[in-house]
């Protein structure tokens, strides 16, 4: 226990140490997080009046970001499955980075839901009267928090074992939890999809294809994000990411994105060929409605173009070049962020069930809160990675006095010699 407290203290210390790039990055993130906090304080005082939401469009960018991020969190398992089911050794250590991402992203999800609440001070009511299993939101509360705990346990345990130079007791403390986490990851995204799908009054959401599409898009955007993170780690630390790992992820992204595009085409065909009145929202999203209501049109087409270009790149031999692969990953992340965030949440409210068309655009304050949460999530993830790398490299262990110096190629060579090899 004592050792664990010391471990946490050292983790805390090390998160304040790095080279100038690390400081610059962390300072920028801290400043944006604080700006977001400031914006949230304003919202807390003045109410959700400070957002662009209305009774007509009653969920906006908070819930849109939440939805996208749940997918990112779920995608962490796409690293876990090859390792634990197919015994793919290349990805073994990378599982930790994936699961740490899940932890940071779930924290972001919870923050996005919290800032969306009109009366966060009533939060304790969730503990005192829980409409389970009727309300899908209660399911979401359970699965998201459960997923957070699961991943905290798995990563925390593995990292602490490395720190203590102990062989982790895998069959007892890791594998069962990992297997649960795999199913759980699918559940967090399915439950989040069901949150929307179950509403009969919103035809845009009331479609069985939403949940599978959620998973497909998550399993392309999530690994794409991980690919980029791994390369950042590769670039700025001693930790070397095996190239094979990136290639495995490329396969996953390729399959998931293809399925996603296929499901999208199925959905669009059903909607537009039928041409029933229920497609007003879909028409609003893709073509706009009469009267100049077309705020989302350029966004969704941008998203579609991005996904298509990424898909083409991935199918070409071009994608073997890391640069093109990275471009494809960026396109996927941004494209799916639009498609599954704003593109999924906002049109469902336009037109309203009574046929009124009111558009939504986030206010500056609302945007700052979103940026603040993103910055805070990245801050968390950076700290997690900052701690994990020296531990995995065997430099930060219980018996070494890890020198709190920047861990990067610029670090003096003498540091290397003090670090025992694992």
């Amino acid at each position, binding site marked *: 226990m004592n050792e664990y407290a010391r471990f946490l203290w050292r983790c805390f210390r090390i998160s304040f140490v790095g080279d100038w790039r690390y400081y610059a990055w962390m300072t920028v993130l801290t400043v944006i997080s604080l700006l977001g906090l*400031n914006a949230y304080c304003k919202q807390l005082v003045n109410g959700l009046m400070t957002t662009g939401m209305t*009774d007509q469009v009653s969920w906006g960018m908070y819930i849109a970001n939440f939805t996208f991020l749940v997918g990112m969190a779920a995608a962490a398992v796409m690293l876990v499955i090859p390792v634990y089911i197919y015994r793919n050794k290349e990805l073994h250590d990378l599982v930790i980075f994936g699961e740490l991402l899940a932890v940071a992203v779930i924290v972001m999800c919870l923050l996005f839901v919290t800032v969306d609440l009109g009366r966060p001070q009533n939060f304790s009511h969730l503990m005192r009267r829980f409409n389970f299993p009727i*309300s899908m939101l209660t399911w979401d509360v359970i699965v998201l928090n459960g997923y957070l705990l699961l991943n905290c346990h798995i990563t925390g345990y593995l990292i602490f074992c490395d720190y203590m130079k102990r062989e982790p007791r895998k069959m007892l403390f890791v594998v069962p939890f990992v297997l649960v986490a795999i199913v759980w990851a699918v559940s967090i995204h399915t439950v989040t999809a069901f949150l929307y799908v179950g*509403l009969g009054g919103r035809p845009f959401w009331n479609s069985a294809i939403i949940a599978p599409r959620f998973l497909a898009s998550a399993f392309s955007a999530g690994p794409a994000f991980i690919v980029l993170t791994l390369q950042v780690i590769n670039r700025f630390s001693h930790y070397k990411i095996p190239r094979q790992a990136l290639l495995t992820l490329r396969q996953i992204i390729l399959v998931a994105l293809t399925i996603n595009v296929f499901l999208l085409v199925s959905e669009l065909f059903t909607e537009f060929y039928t041409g029933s009145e229920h497609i007003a929202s879909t028409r609003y999203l893709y073509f706009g409605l009469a009267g100049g209501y077309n705020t989302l049109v350029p966004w969704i087409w941008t998203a579609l173009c991005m996904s298509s270009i990424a898909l083409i790149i991935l199918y070409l031999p071009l994608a073997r070049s890391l640069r093109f692969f990275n471009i494809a990953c960026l396109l996927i992340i941004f494209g799916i962020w639009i498609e599954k965030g704003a593109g999924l949440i906002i049109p469902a409210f336009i037109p309203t069930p009574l*046929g009124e068309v009111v558009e939504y655009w986030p206010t500056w304050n609302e945007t700052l809160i979103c940026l603040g949460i993103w910055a805070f999530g990245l801050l968390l993830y950076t700290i997690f990675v900052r701690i994990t790398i020296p531990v995995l490299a065997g430099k930060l262990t219980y018996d070494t006095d890890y020198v709190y*110096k920047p861990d990067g190629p610029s670090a003096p060579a*003498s540091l290397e010699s*003090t670090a025992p090899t694992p």
Partner: protein
Amino acid sequence: MDHTDCSSQHDQRHVGTSSGTPTPYRAGLTRRSFLRRSTAAVGGMAALVAALSPLKDLDVEDMFSVERFLQKHYKELSPEELEKVLERIRAQVERDYKFRPELKDIKATEGVQFVYGLNLSRCIGCRRCVHACVKENNQSRSPEIQYIRVLEIPRGTIDIEHSNHYYDRKEVPDPDSFYMPVQCHQCKKPPCVKVCPIEATWQEADGITVIDYDWCIGCRYCEAACPYWARRFNFAKPTYAQDDEGNYLLNHTMTYLSNRPRQQGVMEKCHFCLQRTRVGRLPACLEVCPVGARKFGDVTDPESEVSQILRSKRIFVLKKEVGTEPRFFYYFDERHPQTKTSAPTVTIEGLEPGGRTGGGH
């Protein structure tokens, strides 16, 4: 908070490591690094305080009241606890709006099933119901929250998706349109109740779906779930008009579940004016209607006006396909050729035109 100066200590600690004994980390505090760290810490704290500064305008009593934090859900309150809560609310209204309200809690009468009928042949779209409702139920005036939305629909269609919500005419009715007011339909199978994660909204014995404003967390899931767009959110603290002497223009007769002033960040909606209807009066929207287009009553009483309308007129409910079984129906003046003589079935299925007319239109 950085510690780049530790390189000066590096050599000593290097020795410690190589001797094999775990050396706990000790910060090497040189004057320079101490100053630098203090500056960073002070700077960080200052930035944090600056970020939190908008909180100075927070209504602390609204945000952190122990009494409110410990308050139980409405259904769990004992009569004594309820009286305490009512007293707290009275005091709060007195603090905020400078008058002592007649605040009560009126329970539903068992065996009563309220139903609302709206005569589309008569409604002229004057919107008097909209404003009477706002006055009666103490909705926020700015931004104004309205429970009733009157749709102006061109004749020859009954497509609400092509209705005009913002018609602005010198005179109503417009000869080429008909008017369809929509408010909470008090569904028998309410989707809003189903989705609420904390049971802050529920259906009472008399069929009215109510909200415990003290319990709601403002997630607006119910608002997304409602197929009739009947729920409203307090995006800001409600504001009310004042007369010349500074008195707030509020209805002083209030109940816990209906028209007491709401807080910032909670949902609200039509509750069939339960502060009136549960003591035998009629809803405010009905009383003000100049053409008698609105009918309200207990459907279990065969002699009530709504029961008679259900037996004799052509009726329909809005969005039957969503399966919510509303207690709010629309009807036309023309009598149905096959008027039933027996009482309408009490269940809401009785409202469905196909189920009860047999003949069709």
